């Protein structure tokens, strides 16, 4: 890791990758988050109504989105869209000798290609997750308002009550946020490193590029789901509610 972040630093490439990984994934993340929030609210509406607990819709949606669905869904979407893109691009560069060309031109391909992608993922995945969480909660709000007649102000108050009820790290960072942002940070690293690894180890021409792309999406998706469990367990044990 020390080697990855050593000089020279390719700032221009970092900005370009932040655009490719973050900004260009915005549409897919907005759609995913919005509909997930809505369907979550819709599925819960019947049960909550049965127990007369419609007012807790905000708590349910915010807890689910911030802690689990936001990070995991953003991770899976980025693994599919960005991970495959990175693997295909680096794989194509490998089989067309462009990686060797970088080496022969005195450039370290790790610093030029891997570092900007890893850093951009580390920055953009938590950002996308925050957006995903927010539009998911907004989606839940719409369902709560139109199906359960829960007023918007009440919905958002219960959202905040849920966030506050799980305690704070250093007295002002909600534990839900710590959990919800640690995960995408790890997922960002997992996706970008997996994609760069398979991309740079591509062999066997264009067929090899396809294999690397598939392996990247499968491996990073599985790692996201498995790591999600272990991270949840770890974070729950570390972030004890007051």
């Amino acid at each position, binding site marked *: 890791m020390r080697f990855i972040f050593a000089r020279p630093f390719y700032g221009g490439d970092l900005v370009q990758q932040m655009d490719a990984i973050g900004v260009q994934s915005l549409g897919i993340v907005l759609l995913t988050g919005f509909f997930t929030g809505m369907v979550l609210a819709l599925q819960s509406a019947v049960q909550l109504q049965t127990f007369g607990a419609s007012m807790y819709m905000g708590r349910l949606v915010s807890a689910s989105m911030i802690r689990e669905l936001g990070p995991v869904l953003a991770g899976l979407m980025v693994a599919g869209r960005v991970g495959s893109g990175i693997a295909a691009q680096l794989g194509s560069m490998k089989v*067309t*000798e462009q990686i*060797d060309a970088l*080496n*022969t*031109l*005195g450039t*370290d391909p790790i610093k030029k290609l891997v570092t900007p992608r890893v850093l951009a993922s580390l920055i953009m995945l938590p950002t996308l997750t925050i957006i995903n969480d927010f539009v998911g909660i907004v989606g839940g709000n719409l369902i709560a308002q139109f199906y359960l007649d829960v007023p918007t102000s009440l919905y958002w108050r219960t959202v905040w009550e849920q966030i506050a009820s799980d305690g704070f790290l250093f007295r002002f960072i909600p534990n839900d946020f710590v959990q919800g942002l640690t995960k995408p940070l790890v997922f960002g690293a997992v996706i970008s490193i997996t994609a760069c690894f398979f991309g740079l180890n591509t062999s066997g021409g264009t067929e090899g590029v396809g294999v690397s792309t598939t392996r990247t999406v499968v491996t990073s998706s599985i790692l996201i789901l498995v790591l999600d469990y272990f991270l949840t367990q770890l974070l729950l044990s570390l972030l004890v509610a007051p």
Partner: protein
Amino acid sequence: MIDRDRGAPPDPHAPTDADTPADSVDVAEARERRADDIIRRKQEERVRSAIKDELSKDDTREDRPRPEDPGPLRDAVIELERVHLAFDRPILEDVSFAAFPGETLVIVGESGTGKSTALKLILRLLQPDSGRVYVKGKDIAPLSFTEALDVRQQMGMVFQSAALFDSMTVFENVAYPLREHTDLSDDEIESRVRQKLEFVDLNPDEVIEKLPAELSGGMKKRVGIARGMSNNAEIMLYDEPTSGLDPLTTGTITRLIMKLQRELNVTSIVVSHDIRSAFRMATHIALLADHTIRFFGTPEEMAASDDRYIRDFLGGF
């Protein structure tokens, strides 16, 4: 195994091609005299080295020259010394050759005989299992990754597929080494890029904004050469520069490689299947067969060889 001292440095004033039979004899005699000088100097160096070793009490030093390890040839720009390399099967066995300043050494051989591997060893993209690879007299095996990147900046590599960065324009491709490793201003970089593109017979105004996908095979190779030489590399390495090109473009690329040698005194190592081009551009030819150097000499010596394999390899040429 080849005669290591055969590859003597050429006289810079001597013609590279045999213009007349008399000239050819003069050139051959001059090369022989220089080869004798090199042998004598090497023997003196070895004696001095042996005396020094005897006097040295520190026998445990690992980098002390060994008797079987003669060290780099004086004046050689690139030298492979008894190189062995194997992956799951042997690739190169006991391969030695040297290229001197201003020479064009063409490595020929059947497919899969390790020709491109030899280039990768020179670039230190691979390391030999045993033996040494010297660039300007310096063993490049012990170099760190970063030091190896610095050594590579002295060389320009032209790949079989040209390996242009397809997300960059022609200008950005040729300017890449300058932006990476020099402090030249944008104007100076543009001027250098235009100069290099003109050197490879391309009209800068026509191609500078194009992407590699918009270029023909021959144009890609020429841009690849321009990129390789943009940092004023003293050593040019070519991997199958004429493969997949039509005969006219093949001739153009061959003339370009000769132009680099003639006008800029660049030392070139060319890996090629194309015997006709090899004979036109080479000052020396190395024939790789059965993982080792089967022949090393001038094109004239190769053409005159009675070796059955060489005659078969040359075919009807």
